[in-house]
């Protein structure tokens, strides 16, 4: 561990941040001092203080407790939508890359069509069509995440397909599916791990944006994006704390996954160091 820390301090820092977020989400009921949806009119619009660390909203709900519980929504959207993107994207990429020909042509044109839509526009459109619900936001963000995985996987497959160890495996009669899953997929996994971390950052940001626009989770569920949207109406009274808590939370979560993804990219795959 100490060796790892010295070699890759940034991975450890990013990993710790991400682990911390996961722990907060899992143990939210133990951490949050109040019920996040309990209304208490006598405590409405209290500024941050010893009783309410991040203040209260207009219904007297504790902002800190809502931020803590909001991590559950954000992280589950991150995990689920990235899983959707990963499973579909990688499968399509493996198949298109390995089988080639017509399958490849058709699959890649479909992916091109998905890529033709700006990511947020597509996510908004899908969520709007399916109905404003958090589950639909997860599906929408997952669909938007597919093309990156497909292209990444397909590229790796194409570069590996003609390598000697794959040819050898094919020669001794290893079935195609086994070659793809046991020999090609593991070689592509480093790049995919990096992509998963960066995609989680995007997913959390996208969920916050969708919820901010009223397309994600619905009240009274605590959700960072939606809480910021809600707090807007008190902005002109300078009640800043209602937005500060959830805003800093989104920033921290997205930053953690971006930071981890960047660090993983530098450590796992120097070729990928897309200095962008």
């Amino acid at each position, binding site marked *: 561990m100490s060796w790892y820390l010295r070699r890759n301090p940034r991975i450890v820092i990013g990993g710790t941040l991400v682990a911390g977020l996961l722990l907060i989400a899992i143990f939210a009921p133990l951490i949050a001092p109040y019920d996040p949806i309990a209304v208490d009119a006598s405590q409405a619009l209290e500024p941050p203080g010893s009783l309410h660390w991040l203040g209260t909203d207009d219904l007297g709900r504790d902002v800190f407790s809502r931020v803590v519980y909001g991590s559950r929504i954000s992280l589950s959207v991150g995990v689920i939508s990235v899983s959707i993107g990963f499973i579909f994207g990688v499968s399509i990429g493996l198949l298109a890359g390995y089988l080639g020909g017509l399958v490849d042509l058709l699959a*890649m*044109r*479909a992916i*091109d*069509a*998905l890529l*033709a*839509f*700006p*990511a*947020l*526009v*597509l996510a*908004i*459109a*899908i969520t*709007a*069509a*399916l*109905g404003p619900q958090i589950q639909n936001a997860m599906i929408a963000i997952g669909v938007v995440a597919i093309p990156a995985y497909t*292209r990444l996987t*397909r590229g790796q497959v194409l570069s590996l397909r003609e390598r000697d160890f794959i040819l050898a495996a094919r020669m001794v009669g290893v079935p195609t599916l086994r070659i793809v899953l046991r020999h090609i997929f593991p070689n592509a996994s480093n790049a995919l791990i990096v992509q998963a971390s960066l995609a989680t*950052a995007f997913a959390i*940001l996208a969920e*916050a*944006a969708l919820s*901010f*626009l*009223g*397309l994600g989770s619905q009240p009274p569920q605590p959700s960072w*994006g939606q809480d*910021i*949207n809600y*707090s*807007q109406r008190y*902005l*002109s009274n*300078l009640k*800043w704390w209602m*937005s500060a808590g959830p*805003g800093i939370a*989104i*920033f921290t979560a*997205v*930053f953690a996954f*971006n*930071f981890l993804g*960047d660090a993983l990219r530098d450590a796992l795959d120097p070729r990928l160091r897309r*200095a*962008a």
Partner: protein
Amino acid sequence: MTQYVIRRLLLMIPVAFLVTIIAFGLLRLAPGDPVLVYAGEERDPVSLQELRVLYGLDKPLPVQYIVWLQHAVRGDLGRSLRTRQPVSEAIIERLPATLELGLAAIALSTSIALIVGTIAAVKRNSFVDLLTSSITLAAVSLPNFFLGLILILVLGLALRMFPPGGYVPFLEDPGDNLRRLVLPAITLATASMAVNLRQVRSSLLDVFSHEYIRTARAKGLRESTVIARHAMKNALIPIVTLIGLQIGSVIEGAIITETIFFWPGVGRLLVDSITGLDYPVVQAVVLVSALSFMLSTLAVDMLYAWLDPRISYGRSRT
């Protein structure tokens, strides 16, 4: 080169076709009878049937798609359900506001990225470089609606330096228009500024490692000449690409910023239409933003090929 252009254009046709199918299909994804979208409060079966016939919803889906596509190709994207205004007119009306905001943001983000990115690259691993890379990572992680609210709160409401929102056409009052542009432009520019800055820094560092830069330095040229005249030329190629793509996705970027700042552009039109269940407008904005994104990708690819003769045109970029 000509062959490459033709090839790219041909490849675009099936993709554009799929894009129209997706844009059309999105409206039909909505659960329930599509006629209810047009019906408003109307629930009388006879009137519903009349509406169904009026909007061609009684025909099979492929027929509906072809009719819709025929109209769309001629620029007829239907009418808004809320205002009865032709959708294309509604979009064109709001495009100037979006373009003004988008271009202001791109100009801001590019100029800061070029200046700061160059300094970071020249003074690699210095304190300035470290500070910039931390700030850029922070800037891409900051949700723009939160940044927008901070700006409104601090510069708009507390310090009263800029109006916290709203829009005045440039021709009506240029000064007021520009004052109202400042906060949304900063909001929109921040994330792309970070991305551009990292690109400027990394492509300059990449170019610095080339032989011809060493030659230029060995000739005794001043460092500023080496950077401005020799390094920049090649380093700028990827940045041009990035900016081209940002121009293409100007509607996407503007969605949230326009919503926060009450900026009457295409992005806000999309959000308002979603809230108002105005599906024809949603469909049209989605289609237009996808097509403009596609065209900018195409333009960027061609520009790239033209700027950098080392790129081979033989293989498709997949």
